């Protein structure tokens, strides 16, 4: 990534046009969502897409504050404090402003068009609703979950199960610009779309890992032949892995951890059972791009 003298980063030149014209990103100021925002901005710059920031004022919180006995336990004092609706609304407005400021900062850095919307309601529902017009929804793997669990947050789960959009689930410690990419490939059309997107996402110098999942042992040869048609001849760093006849998400997760190759690109419409895919996404601690709309590249 080059840098101008003003510090703005210029995305590398890409040829062709993209189906992704709009990228929505949910921002709740959690670390995962900040990572999501950075990635979304970088992708928007690369694909000349518009960036849409979404902040949702959680209706559950507001309702709770109106309940007569409502109290919150502060993190740093562990003491219960009465909740005040006005105060809560003020805090939510501050969070919204922080989210907008973060969006503006990243958008300016990557020089992308951007807009920001604040909605009120149930967070998963509102995020998906706000992202209806977008071609890609970028979310943190988990948001402001009380339990700090490793698995997916409620919004991410809803986006996987209740949306037909391409969904990119990010987590802290990863960046789309620095990482290699691992694609699950089983020969299906959706997995071919995943390969195409992965090639577009991959930055020069990074490695494209392809994990071939032949249904029958020995199919990997045919798969490799297919892939040579899909992968540009000038692409130097491609590594092939084979894991035949696997349907267990835990085995897949273990293998992917071992490969440790960054962003995981897959489709929930490939030959593998969707449940395996969702379990894998829940289990794996890597950023995941779930491809659904038949490829980004026209």
């Amino acid at each position, binding site marked *: 990534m080059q840098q101008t003298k003003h510090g703005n980063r210029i995305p590398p030149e890409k040829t062709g046009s993209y189906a992704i014209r709009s990228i929505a990103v949910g921002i709740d100021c959690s670390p995962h969502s900040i990572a999501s925002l950075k990635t979304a901005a970088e992708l928007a710059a690369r694909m000349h897409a518009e960036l849409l920031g979404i902040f949702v004022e959680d*209706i559950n919180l507001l*309702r709770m504050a109106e*309940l*007569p006995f409502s109290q*919150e336990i502060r*993190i740093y004092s562990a003491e219960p404090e009465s909740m005040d609706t006005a105060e*809560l609304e003020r805090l*939510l407005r501050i969070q919204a402003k922080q989210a907008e400021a973060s969006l503006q900062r990243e958008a300016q850095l990557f020089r992308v068009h951007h807009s920001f919307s604040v909605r009120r309601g149930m967070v998963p529902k509102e995020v998906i609703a706000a992202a209806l017009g977008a071609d890609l929804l970028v979310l943190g793997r988990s948001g402001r979950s009380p*339990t700090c669990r490793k698995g997916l947050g409620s919004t991410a789960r809803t986006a996987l199960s209740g949306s037909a959009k391409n969904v990119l689930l990010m987590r802290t410690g990863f960046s789309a610009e620095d990482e290699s990419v691992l694609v699950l490939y089983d020969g299906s059309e959706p997995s071919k779309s995943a390969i195409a997107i992965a090639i577009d996402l991959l930055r020069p110098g990074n490695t494209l890992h392809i994990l071939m999942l032949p249904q029958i042992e020995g199919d990997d040869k045919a798969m490799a032949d297919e892939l040579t048609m899909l992968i540009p001849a000038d692409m130097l760093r491609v590594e092939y892995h084979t894991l035949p006849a696997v349907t267990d998400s835990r085995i897949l997760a273990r293998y992917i951890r071992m490969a440790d190759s960054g962003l995981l690109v897959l489709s929930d419409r490939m030959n593998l059972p969707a449940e395996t895919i969702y379990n894998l996404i829940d289990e794996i601690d890597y950023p995941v791009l779930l491809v659904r709309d038949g490829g980004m590249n026209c």
Partner: protein
Amino acid sequence: MSIPSALHPDKLYRKCDPLEFTFTTTEELDGSLEIAGQERALDAIRFSMGILHDGFNLFALGPNGTGKQTAVMHYLSGIASQAGIPDDWCYVYNVEKPRHPSALRLPAGKACALSRDMERLVEALFTVLPAAFSSEEYQAQEKAIGEQFQERQTAAIEKLEKKAAENNIALIRTPAGFAFAPVKNGEVIKPEEFMLLKEGEREVIEKEIASLKNAMQSIMAQIPKWQREAQEKIKELNRQVADFAVKPLFAELKNNYSSLGQVTAYLETTENDIIEHFDRFLEKEGAPHEIFAGLSATKGSFFNRYRINVLVDNSRSTGAPLVFEDKPACQNLVGDIEHLSQMGTLVTDFTLIKAGALHRANGGYLLIDARRLLIEPLAWEALKKALRTRQIRIESLAQLYSLVSTVSLDPEPIPLEVKVILMGERYLYYLLSSYDPDFSELFKVAADFEDDLRNNPEGRFAYARTIGAIVEKDRLRHFDRTAVARIVEHGCRLAGDATKLTAHMQSIADIVRESEYYARENDRALVAAEDVQHAIDARTVRASRIREKLREATLRNTILIDTTSEKTGQINGLAVYSLGNQSFGHPGRITARVSLGKGEVIDIEREVEMGGPIHSKGVLILSGFLAARFGMQQPLSLSASLVFEQSYSGIEGDSASSAELYALLSALSETPIRQWLAVTGSVNQHGEVQAIGGVNEKIEGFFDLCTARGLDGKHGVLIPVSNIDNIMLRNDVVEAVKAGLFSIYPVSHIDEGIEILTGIPAGEADADGLYPRESVNGKVQARLQEMALKLKKFNAESNGNDD
């Protein structure tokens, strides 16, 4: 009384016979230096260096240029090479008290080795520690600890969340913490719906939420404890990993220095400190903005703590150190703590401690010029303190005087074992002895260097060896023995005594070098007597401007000096002018006038405060002589005045007192004095003529004037007989004496001198104390009697008029 004869030419110059030398040229000498004629001083040096008790330091006293430093260095270089090599010293970081760096003592040569070893070790740590902490094993363990904490926290909250969910209550994250709320179909119950519930149902929910809150509070209260536990585990893990990485490196180092307890203790402390601060070795280089903010400098300075500041390195020494400190400023003696300017602030650390001469000379010998030491502020006090306390404590002058206000260091003092040799003029020694009580405690031995040595074969050969050594050292042309003999004669002249040779070796060395210059100019392979003479003459000419001006003024009668006629009450005295390192003689006219008075002799020089105390003393002495000789029969009824004519500056010394007495006797006796003679010598109350200084210059001064006017055989000088041994005159003077053109009369009593000066016998008193009428003394007696009668008559008439 018989008058003395003029001195024979042989008495005027002590020749050095070149043939008495067994060598032909100085090339045949071995070129080694011999300190001759200084046995007393050398004994003192030997004693001082040999005695090992406190305070037996040495003060080498004597005029500058007498070879004190050469002698001391010559002796010390002999014993220093035989002495043991002292230990190395270095300063290291003090982990417990960073402001008090620790001093580390190591065997000679080990300090630099330790410094190199530590540098290599730290360099290795920058590889070893990051490797250890980026290893898969460490990462996995660290992650496991973090996850363990996370899981513990998650499990507790999830359990509570599950319990809450069983009662349709959700745990919700608020902007500032956590809260519980009743839910229906995954959404928090709207307040109006909640209010529609029966009171009993609401109470159950509220009770349940209250219970959950309590449980949540207890979980929250435990989280910091779990966090601490996790941090402790990570800390322990870090310590183990750092220890594992660092230990083998230190083990090797400790093994190398196992015999040095202090070093192994230091290594132990440093090892623990590195383990404590392992994270510093993991940090990457500062980003550009950090460098700008000065953070990188701070980071760099952190690792300074593992450096070794080698203060004294004796790895190349072959014996005890022998140090001459040319600029004995305080910080050059006891060392200094330097500072660096960082972002406008002065900072320092133990690596900026600089060694002083005392550090370098520790275990050996330190030579210092006393005058230079005393003119350096606080240096003398600092040296005394170091010697008294037997340790070197570095104190920054700037800190002592609050010239800078910044954090400084107080390094651990280093034990001191040194012999200090001060060198200086005698007056410095006597001043220090008188005014500084510490001095005699700390410098108990004085090596008093002689000003001259005997002019005997040993002395002359010592001169030859000295010349040979100078030639060898300065790579000059060698001297043939005639040149050596001429230099010996010059040394004799400089000593101002024909029986002595000057010990001012600096002057001899100068004339050696100057002579060699002229030999080179004349393309001579060897320096000959002519070259030495050339150098001596050239030196005289170079310094002769004032002398020639004076002589010119005299020849033009601007300064009135009569060298041909006879005058009453007037005499030619001889004075010596000292300008720089050159001196010359010149005659001066002294006159005396008498009148009736109360027996007083007025010294006009004293009256106008142009005469020094010794000169005034001389005049009073001659008054005593007059009173004793002529005042026994009658009171001295005279008033006499004495003056140096055309003297426009002060006069000191009593060497003209005999001349003044001659002038006074001439005035009283009305006997003219021969102006072609000049006089020098002091006189005592018995009329005996006593020795004076600068006799050669005085004789030559008058000789030069008379020569300029034309010698006619009458010219001469009266000198005290006790000065005969001091005569070492120029060759032209000796030749003139040989030719009978100039005479030098050695006079022992004033009566001898007056007869030479007037041609009339002084006369001897008979039993009644009366002198023959035609003698000078008889005329004086008669004149004084006449004056007494006149005064008596005058007084009587005055008294009658008064009545």
